[in-house]
């Protein structure tokens, strides 16, 4: 494999890695009679690559590989008919409890708002225009 191709493949894999860095993702809400359950998972992708020169006269080689992982973080339960804080349960798995609490709530709200209204904030480019009036 040529050095150029190896380099191109490596940068492609790096871009993929950047795109799919570890993050929290919400599953489809499961609506039940008395509650709605929203699964929460952490998605990550590991990418590795390497290249080497063979003996003089032989072609070098490049190897690349990627692996994705999904690990459950917890679930959010909204109980129907139970008012106040009692109606919302965030059940995080013990090992990720602290981290999950910090990361989850704003995302949960966003998910709810999109579900309820279907409206989204302005694009960054539009905001920039308005903030430079």
């Amino acid at each position: 494999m040529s050095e150029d191709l190896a380099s191109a493949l490596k940068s492609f894999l790096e871009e993929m890695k950047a795109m799919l860095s570890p993050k929290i993702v919400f599953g489809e809400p499961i609506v039940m009679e008395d509650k709605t359950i929203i699964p929460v998972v952490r998605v990550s992708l590991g990418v590795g690559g390497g290249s080497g020169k063979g003996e003089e006269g032989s072609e070098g080689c490049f190897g690349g590989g990627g692996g994705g992982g999904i690990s459950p973080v917890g679930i959010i339960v909204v109980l129907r008919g139970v008012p106040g804080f009692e109606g919302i349960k965030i059940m995080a798995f013990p090992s990720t409890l602290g981290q999950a609490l910090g990361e989850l709530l704003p995302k949960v709200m966003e998910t709810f708002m999109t579900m309820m209204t279907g409206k989204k904030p302005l694009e960054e480019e539009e905001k920039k225009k308005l903030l430079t009036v």
Partner: protein
Amino acid sequence: MGEKKYEGLPELIEGLQNTCSNLTAGIEEFSQGTKASRDEMKSRSFLMRSFAQKDFESNTGMGFDEWVEFSERLLSRFENISAAVQRLDEVKLDPSRIPSALGELPNVAGPFLERHDLMVEVLDRFANYMLDMPKKTESIPKPFRALMSEEDRKRMVEEAPKVGEGIKRLIDGLKTAKEQITDLYRFL
């Protein structure tokens, strides 16, 4: 000959002065109201705050801090436009000095004219959000609705529509300003 060329200019200047004066007052009020809402939001519980902030941003297009920044910039823009129109007013009877005073206008009004349509669109989203608040209050999921005080609920139903009407008037003012400034350009 000079007088003929600038026929109608004094009236146009006067109209734009009135519009700018009304607009700066309206934008200042809007800015103060947005700041007050932002500050009040900080005193809310984490859960209620998260819900309200996301709801506000999704519906109006921007968060509280961004609206405050936008309104302050818009106010500053109209203060500059007002000052340019004031200078024009001072020389309106001297045709030899009009071109130079008139020439300042595109610099100060350009950013407003370029963003006018987007501003109107996003302010309209804000206005409609406030006007729809009474209906929306009823559509908030019950677990979240129970977190609101009676005072909040009353304000959302009674006060929010008035704010919405105020923003609609602000939009009308911006449209008028655009027309008048564009009209002034014909004297350039």
